[in-house]
Structure formats: C-alpha cells, structure tokens
C-alpha cells in the first residue's frame, strides 16, 4: 500500500501529513507516508482541492483536515 499526502505547502496540508504519519504509526503499519507538494501531481489526479490524502494513487480524502480516527478508518479500508 502506498500512502501519499499532497498539498500546496499550506499549513493545513502539512498538518494532514503529520496526522497521517501518526495514524500509520498507531495502526502499526510499516509504511512510509510520502509528502508531495508538486501541484501538477494533485491536478493530474483530477482533484481540485488540497490537501489530498491518496492511497495507492487514488484520492481518498480531499479538501479538508479530518481527525486522526477518520484517517485510520480510511486507511483500514484499503488494508
């Protein structure tokens, strides 16, 4: 499984990255969370709102900062 956080470098995006890392750790997964600030990548995914949490290259959460439980739930669906 590949987990990425994409953002334009705004504080909200950074925060999503931090929380996602925390969520992965709490779930006991051995996955590196990737942080991408290349806007082209976001647009190529067809998403128009950042930040984006993408799992396996597909946007799973877009446009807002969820709490950690929501992120865990989302990741679990892909395990």
């Amino acid at each position: 499984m590949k987990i990425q956080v994409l953002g334009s470098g705004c504080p909200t995006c950074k925060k999503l990255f931090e929380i996602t890392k925390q969520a992965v750790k709490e779930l006991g997964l051995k996955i590196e969370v990737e942080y991408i600030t290349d806007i082209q990548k976001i647009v190529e995914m067809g998403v128009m709102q950042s930040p984006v949490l993408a799992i396996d290259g597909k946007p799973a959460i877009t446009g807002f900062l969820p709490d950690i439980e929501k992120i865990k739930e989302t990741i679990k669906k892909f395990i």
Partner: protein
Amino acid sequence: MNIFYHIKNFADWITFDVFGIEQTTHLGDSVNFFIYDSIKIIILLLIINYFMAIVRHYLPVEKLRDFLASRKWYGLDYFFASVFGTITPFCSCSSIPLFIGFIEAGIPLGVTLSFLITSPLVNQVAVVLFAGLFGWKIMILYVISAMLLGIFGGFILGKLKLEKYVADYVWQIKSQKLEIKNNKEKFSALIKKFWHEGFDLTKKITSYVLLGIAVGATIHGYVPAGFFENYIKADNFFAVPIATIVAVPMYANAVGVIPIMQSLVEKGIPLGTAMAFMMAVVGLSLPEALILKRVMKIKLLAYFFGITTINIIILGYLFNAFVK
C-alpha cells in the same frame, strides 16, 4: 421580531445575576456582549454548517466545474462562477488546484477569476457572523456585493485577454477524469454524516470565532462611542482607499475580522470603510499573491489584484453613500 430575545435574557441573567457584575460598568458591557454574541453565533453556525454539509455532498466542486465547462454560457457563466464561489469552502491552499482545474476544463480565464474573487469573501461562517452581528439586511447586501465584485472583476479581467499571462505549464496539464464516486449511502447514514461534518466544522472554528468576538466585545465595552471619528472622519474622502490599500497585503480569516469590524462600526467607523477594509483583508493578501504567482505571471497577478482593489474601493464608497 427578534428570535434572539431569549438568548439576550439568558446573557443578561448570567452576567448581572450569576456573575454579579454591575450593569453599567465597562466589564459588564463587554461580558454581556460576549456571552450573547457567542451563544447566538454558535447556534447559527451549527445550523448553517449542517446545511452546507448537505449542499457539499450533492454539489462537489468537480460537479460545479463540469457544469460551467459543459456549454457556452454567453456571460451567464460569470454569474454562476460567483454563485459557486459562495457555496464552496475556500482555503487558500486550494486556490491553485482550483485555478488549474478550471482552466484545464476549458472554463474561460475571466470566469475562473470570478470564482477566485468571490470564494474567500463568502462562506457560511462569514454569512453567519454578518447575520448575527449586523443583521439580515447587511448580510444580504454583503453577499450580493461580494458576488458583484466577482462578476464584474472576472468580466473585466476576461475582456483584457490576459490568457498569455497564465503560467505556460498550466495549459499543458492534462488531468485524469476522476470518476465521481456514487456509492449509494442510506439516507439515515447520510443524515448522520451531515450532522457529524457540520458539528466537526463548528467545533474546529469555534475557538477562532470566540477570539474574534472577545476582541469585539472588549472594544464594545471599553472604547467610547464615537472614538474613531477623531481619526477617521466619516466625510474623509480618502478613508476608503487608504483602508483598502493598507488591508490588501494583510491576511486574516473572515471569522476573526468580522466581529472586530462590527465593533469598529458601532464606535463610529463608516460601514463602507470598514467593509472595504474587511474585504481587502479577507479577499486579497500577500500570502495569496505568493501562492497564485505559481500559476500566474506577474502581469496577470497585478491586474487581478489591481482591478479587485479598485472595485472594493468603489464598493466602499457606494456603501458609505447609500447604506445607512
């Protein structure tokens, strides 16, 4: 008719009976104002955030984009883009993907800019704060003004043929079509989901709202009426442009600015001047310029900021002249 009558009574009871603060003191004034406004606004926020969760579920921004790109609108698209700007949540972090997404879908540059101008100015929190602090009439006037700013600004910018000043790589990006998920959720599950979303959002912004109201309440209680008139005369011709231009580089969220603005108006700053200041703070800022510079060449950015600033100034004058 005042639906907030009971909240007012409650705030009076807490301040003057429970806390035992003297009614005529500055402190009593501020505390009473703070309690009353906070309760009123948080209730309104809960309601509107719930409705906005519903709107967003059925009208995600991708759908709005596809609607705009679906056919030729002969100018009506400026209006639609501005309306859509009012209902979409806006975080400056989204302005770039939105900009590219719109352009890439074939939406004209001017229409895209209409959306970008209106979007940060109007969101449900700003609407609630205006309705709660200034009343419904001013709230509606504000929303219409913000839409007019977007429509006219976008229209003028569109007529100037500035497409060549969009960063070149933007025209080359091809995005994959994101299949819009249509997982059928049960109605009862949806209702729960809307409630959760609305509640979460309310929770998230409450501290900012309270902070804004607290500053506003302090001004309300401690700054004497008419205080600002010594500095900004209502008939000072340059007050509006100065307030606007000073505010352009600054950034603050509408949430924090509106309660403070309300107190300033109450203490004698003309509404149009305060509103021009607020719009320039919320709608235009240095950080926003730096973000947009990644997709706009400097000339387009200058036109975008310049024309929006001039429009805000005109609006400020109109408000001072006609809204009492």
